[in-house]
């Protein structure tokens, strides 16, 4: 299974080197990758249908419990087949759509990375690896949206999409880590066994909010929906594949995957129903005001995602069944409509629905595909869309509480979606062919076959629902934790409330289509509401955040070293001082301390005198000499207290430092008295307080017991393991040899830096005037 996931990444890597061969006629060959993967996953259908869950596990970071654990159940299988199946058609379609494009190889590479990441996402059982793949899909989506990187709008949309989905990824990581610490495992299968304990856990709500944050951003739920219409700047195959059929459904997938772990609580269900309902209605209404075909499709996609979230929120067996069917329905018709739109755009050069008409006369097969998809989207029998709509209504009418409201919301959404489907699938092909489109030609079969195939599948599955019943739909319901044995899919459900609702939907929808014509006037009207849309609110927030951080930075990063040091020291003094005074238990046990001998006192006095002289002398050479004295006094302290190695090193370094200063001193500026008296007093008080605090801290620490296990270990093993008797040296060259190796490298870098700084000549032009 790992190979299957890695195949996409490997192919992308391969394209880096062999890309130029895949730009021309060979491009279509790359479609073999998703095709073979599709066949591979399809071969699992019998095993999964019989209730088996195929798992495979690879150790990755075992010490943190992060493995590449993969499991294939009904849910994963449905998504895998969608990813590879639609992927195959999109690969084929692209080879013609972007024929002879300069960066076709690059496009295929991004697409392959995306496919691999998406497969990894739906197959991962470990949340951490799921998160990694989740982020990879966001990143590949970023590159694909910004594929036309010469257009500023594309780049901006790509950035928005990355920002929103990246935020979601962050939320997923937080949720994953939280769930991991709550359950002690990162495996979703293992988490399912702890459902009860999780629901009662104090952090349950928080974990759910994190998972929602990830799912809602990825699946473009209100108020995070606005990145998706922007993402339509991507080439149409990308919109088809990522932003309609697969990637945006990752959020839905996440919710379904976590339903058996976190679902079935009031909070979970209510939030999903409310968010799903708002999203589906809000964006369905938006479709009325769009004239760009892809805009219509983008909003209807968001609406469809809203329906899915809403269905997951209902949480009944019927709702899950409806969701499973609707995922298939939507993937089939929405991909078709996108591909059809792509063909129109490619051949006719416009996506403006107000000017498009009568294209059936020049591209009949495309018109058929569009018509069938529109039928399916409208839920008119015998398409599978009808089945999906019936099941959705069925689930809504059986919901607990507020049935009227829920049914009304879903019916209204469906009416508007029918309108959107007709606008995208039928409108461009009906009516009189305008003069300027008479020269429009049919595209190559590589372009029109994929949408037609998908559209026909939508009808075939509608007439023979048993084809997908036990192979795809039932395992999904099982994977969501409901019994699926009594499910039977059929077009005709008998004459009941649901059928009446269906008839109302279709009738009103078609009426709406004939009354309401998309126009620029309508589009402008909604444009007036732009300032209060979530997108502009976010933009304003971003702007104010920038202003604020600039202000903040200017306050603290003002470029004066003195101020930085003052701030740091002041905060340290206040914080540590506060804690210290609050909990002061400074007891000095005189019996434990060593005696002060006369020579030690003498050294101390010399040292302190040296420090004072260094600080207060006006002569630089005097300061350097006094500093040397301070160093030598410290050296003596090392001698007194059993550190001969330190004493030797300190002595040599002290000598060298003084030499160094003497060498450069005459090249260095004279002492300047720059600060006034007041400032010096202020700094003096600050530094004395700080020094006093450090002294007190040191004494306080001395009162605490010391742990010398590490030192004891080294001391015990110095001779036995490392054949050395000078333990300090043994630590340096043997026990901690790697540290020393790095340290001498740092030293060498410092020397090279000094050499470079001095040998480097400053050009006169670089000199400030």
């Amino acid at each position, binding site marked *: 299974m790992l190979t299957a996931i890695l195949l996409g990444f490997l192919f992308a890597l391969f394209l880096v080197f062999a890309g130029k061969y895949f730009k021309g006629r060979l491009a279509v060959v790359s479609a073999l990758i998703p095709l073979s993967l599709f066949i591979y996953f399809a071969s699992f259908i019998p095993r999964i249908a019989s209730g088996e869950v195929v798992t495979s596990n690879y150790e990755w970071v075992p010490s943190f419990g992060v493995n590449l654990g993969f499991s294939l159940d009904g849910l994963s299988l449905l998504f895998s087949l969608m990813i590879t199946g639609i992927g195959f058609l999109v690969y084929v379609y692209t080879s013609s759509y972007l024929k002879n494009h300069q960066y076709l190889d690059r496009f295929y590479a991004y697409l392959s990375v995306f496919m691999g990441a998406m497969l990894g996402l739906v197959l991962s059982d470990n949340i951490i690896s799921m998160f990694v793949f989740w982020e990879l899909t966001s990143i590949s989506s970023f590159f694909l949206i910004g594929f036309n990187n010469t257009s500023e709008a594309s780049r901006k949309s790509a950035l928005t999409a990355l920002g929103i989905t990246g935020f979601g990824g962050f939320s997923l990581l937080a949720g994953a880590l939280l769930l991991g610490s709550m359950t002690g495992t990162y495996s979703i299968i293992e988490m399912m066994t702890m459902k009860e304990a999780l629901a009662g856990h104090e952090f349950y709500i928080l974990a759910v909010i994190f998972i929602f944050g990830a799912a809602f951003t990825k699946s473009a739920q209100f108020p995070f929906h606005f990145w998706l219409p922007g993402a339509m700047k991507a080439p149409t195959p990308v919109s088809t594949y990522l932003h309609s059929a697969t990637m945006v459904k990752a959020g839905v997938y996440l919710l379904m995957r976590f339903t058996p772990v976190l679902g079935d609580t009031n909070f979970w269900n209510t939030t999903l129903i409310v968010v799903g309902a708002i999203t589906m209605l809000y964006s369905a209404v938006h479709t009325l005001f769009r004239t760009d075909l892809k805009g219509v499709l983008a909003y209807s996609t968001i609406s469809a995602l809203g329906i899915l979230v809403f269905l997951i929120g209902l949480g009944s067996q019927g709702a899950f069944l409806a969701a499973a069917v609707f995922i298939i329905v939507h993937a089939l018709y929405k991909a078709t409509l996108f591909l059809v739109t792509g063909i129109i755009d490619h051949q006719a050069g416009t996506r403006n629905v107000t000017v498009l008409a009568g294209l059936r006369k020049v591209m009949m097969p495309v018109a058929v595909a569009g018509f069938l998809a529109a039928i399916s989207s409208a839920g008119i029998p015998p398409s599978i869309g009808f089945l999906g709509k019936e099941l959705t209504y069925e689930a809504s009418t059986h919901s607990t509480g507020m049935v009227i409201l829920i049914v009304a919301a879903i019916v209204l959404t469906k009416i508007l979606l029918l309108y959107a489907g007709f606008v995208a699938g039928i409108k461009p092909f009906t009516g009189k062919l305008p003069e300027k489109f008479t020269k429009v030609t049919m595209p190559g079969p590589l372009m029109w076959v994929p949408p037609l195939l998908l559209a026909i599948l939508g009808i075939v599955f509608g007439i023979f629902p048993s084809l997908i019943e036990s192979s795809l739909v039932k395992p999904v319901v099982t994977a969501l934790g409901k019994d699926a044995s009594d499910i039977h899919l059929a077009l005709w459900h008998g004459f009941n409330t649901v059928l009446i609702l269906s008839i109302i939907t279709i009738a009103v929808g078609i009426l709406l289509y004939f009354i309401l014509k998309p126009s620029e006037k309508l589009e402008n009207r909604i444009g007036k509401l732009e300032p209060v849309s979530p997108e502009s609110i976010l933009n304003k927030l971003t702007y104010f955040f920038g202003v604020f951080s600039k202000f903040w930075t200017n306050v603290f990063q003002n470029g004066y070293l003195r101020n930085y040091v003052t701030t740091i020291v002041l905060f340290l003094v206040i914080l540590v001082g506060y804690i210290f005074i609050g909990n002061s238990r400074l007891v*000095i046990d005189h019996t434990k301390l060593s005696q002060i001998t006369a020579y030690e006192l003498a050294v101390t006095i010399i040292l302190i005198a040296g420090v004072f002289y260094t600080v207060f002398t006006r002569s630089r050479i005097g300061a350097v000499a006094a500093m040397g004295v301070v160093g030598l006094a410290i050296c003596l302290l090392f001698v007194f*207290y*059993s550190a001969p190695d330190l004493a030797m090193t300190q002595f040599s*370094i002290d000598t060298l430092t003084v030499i160094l200063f003497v060498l450069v001193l005459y090249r260095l500026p004279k002492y300047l008295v720059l600060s006034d008296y007041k400032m010096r007093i202020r700094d003096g008080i600050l530094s004395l307080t700080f*020094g006093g605090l*450090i002294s007190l801290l040191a004494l306080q620490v001395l009162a605490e017991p010391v742990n010398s296990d*590490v030192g004891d270990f080294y001391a015990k093993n110095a001779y036995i393991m490392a054949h050395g*008797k000078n333990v*300090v040296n043994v630590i340096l060259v043997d026990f901690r040899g790697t540290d020393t190796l790095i340290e001498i490298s740092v030293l060498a870098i410092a020397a090279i830096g000094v050499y470079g700084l001095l040998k480097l000549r400053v050009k006169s032009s670089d*000199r400030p005037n």
Partner: protein
Amino acid sequence: MEILFAIIIGVLYAAGIYMILRRSLVKLIIGIILLGNGANLLIFLLGRITEGAPPIIPEESKVFLEAYADPVPQALILTAIVISFGLQSFAIILVKRAHKVVKTDDLDEMNATDEDS
């Protein structure tokens, strides 16, 4: 003696910070050196000071027979002393270089030229 040690450390820290707060470049370097010495002594003190028992295994023995000073802080400080030499020399040269280019010893003026150019 520990109390004297603590006082010495306090004085070194205070002097170091005071020198760093000056505007003169040379004083800045001296401040850093003093602060570094203070930090070394602090580590040394916190590892507990022991008189007359260096962490060296006696000639005839394979392990320590008596009390010994903790070798870990000593190893830490040893590397710190050597590294600080690298730091000092680099800082000194940087100052010299900066002085040559900007022709000022005032840290505040260096800041100003940075923004104007």
